[in-house]
């Protein structure tokens, strides 16, 4: 089995940013994403009810795209919104599909 080492970007932020983030992630070159509702607690307090909850995005992408996404997130969300973001290494099956920046819209 051939595996490609790629980056996985994880972003947890306010769910009202979901639509924008979906769009941005694809614009910045990712071929797709997986997202889900989560609850959380952090410096901006608890986010776990109908009026305040979080969304978590996972994006498999090449390093350059990962950096573009993280840069966008840190410039636009960190100051004003509940947000955390991190990067990790993953070995992806048929990774070639995700290795080149693309530019679609969801």
């Amino acid at each position, binding site marked *: 089995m051939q595996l490609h080492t790629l980056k996985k970007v994880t972003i947890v932020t306010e769910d009202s*940013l979901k639509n924008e983030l979906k769009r941005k992630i694809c614009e910045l070159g990712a071929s797709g994403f997986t997202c889900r509702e989560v609850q959380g607690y952090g410096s901006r307090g608890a986010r776990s*009810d109908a009026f305040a909850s979080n969304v978590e995005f996972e994006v498999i992408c090449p390093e350059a795209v990962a950096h573009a996404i993280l840069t966008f997130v840190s410039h636009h969300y960190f100051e004003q919104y509940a947000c955390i973001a991190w990067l990790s290494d993953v070995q992806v099956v048929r990774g070639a599909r995700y290795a080149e920046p693309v530019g679609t819209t969801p």
Partner: protein
Amino acid sequence: MDIELIGRSLRDNLLTPIPMCFALGIFSKLIHGGIKIPKEFYYAISIYLLMSIGIIGGHELAHEYQAHGVATIWKPALITLLLGCLTPLSAYAVLRYIGKLSIADAAGIAAHYGSTSAVTFIVANDYVGNQNVAVDAYLPTLVTILECPGIAIALIIGAVGMSMQKRSESSARSNGLEDDDEHKGKLWEALHEVLTGQSLMLMVGLLVIGFISTLVMPADKFQVFEQFFYNKNMIFRGALCIFLLEMGLVTGERLGDLLKVGPFLVAFGIIMPLIHGFVGCYLGKMAGMSLGGCAVLGAIVSSASYIAAPPAVRLTLPEANPTLSMTAALGITFPFNIAIGIPIYFWMAQMVGAPMVAKETKPPSLMVPAVSRPAADKAGEAKPAEAKH
């Protein structure tokens, strides 16, 4: 209306299941109790409530229209639009210049107070009905008219204010213009989001549906929808109990924030609604609305949005602290209105001399539909919502 009367009216208003469910929710949070309404259940109920306000609103509007054309409604509609434009301004002015809040915070809170709360409308409607006073059939229409403009105007004030401030602060920086453009883009997006947001689309959509079906369907065919959605019937009442239980839980969770927001905001959350409510009652009377209608108009004008406004503000004015606006709207004004505000607006409506039955006014000729203007002389048969059930 002497003290004893107020006391009795308070008791009659508060010691009923719906407000007590709200109190139970708060109490449960205070003692760290385990009541938990699944988010999806809460969403399901709010969808139902919004649809209900819409479809029954459209239904009543159709009756009103069949009986009086636009004679009774054009003035109240205009007045409501005016109130939707004035209240964000007054709220902003008070918050910014008396309360010394930042531009973003002042505009953010003003957006909430410029819009309205559907649940407050329902409770007010109910209260008035309990006083055996009829309300005008077109009131749900006014709720939908009131929902949007206030949010839009406050967001524009905020966006313009912020960009002016930024420009004056750093007239040297090069990215001023870009920022401006981005701000405008965000503003557009947020306005689109309010206009096409869940609450407005459901209310307006179902209003249109209710209006058309009432005109087209035989009355006995529509009846089954009325049974399901009508706000005096069991499903609506039961749903409201559960909804307010959840609202109580959310409010209880945030009660601690009351201490953080400071006395000014607490005072604002009580006094501003009283002022807006009075203006609502007064202008309502000027527009020829009945006693019940004026009282309900006062209540909805005074109330602050906690469903449509928050996400719109969060997206356009991220600098505004959401704790401030949510605490004021949900933690102060909402319970204040439910508990004592509504009886006060009712009393205000009496004070300004609103008549028991609405007056009819000839609308400016361009508003009269050419063909289907029904006989306006049958004013006597005006059949208020209450009388029918």
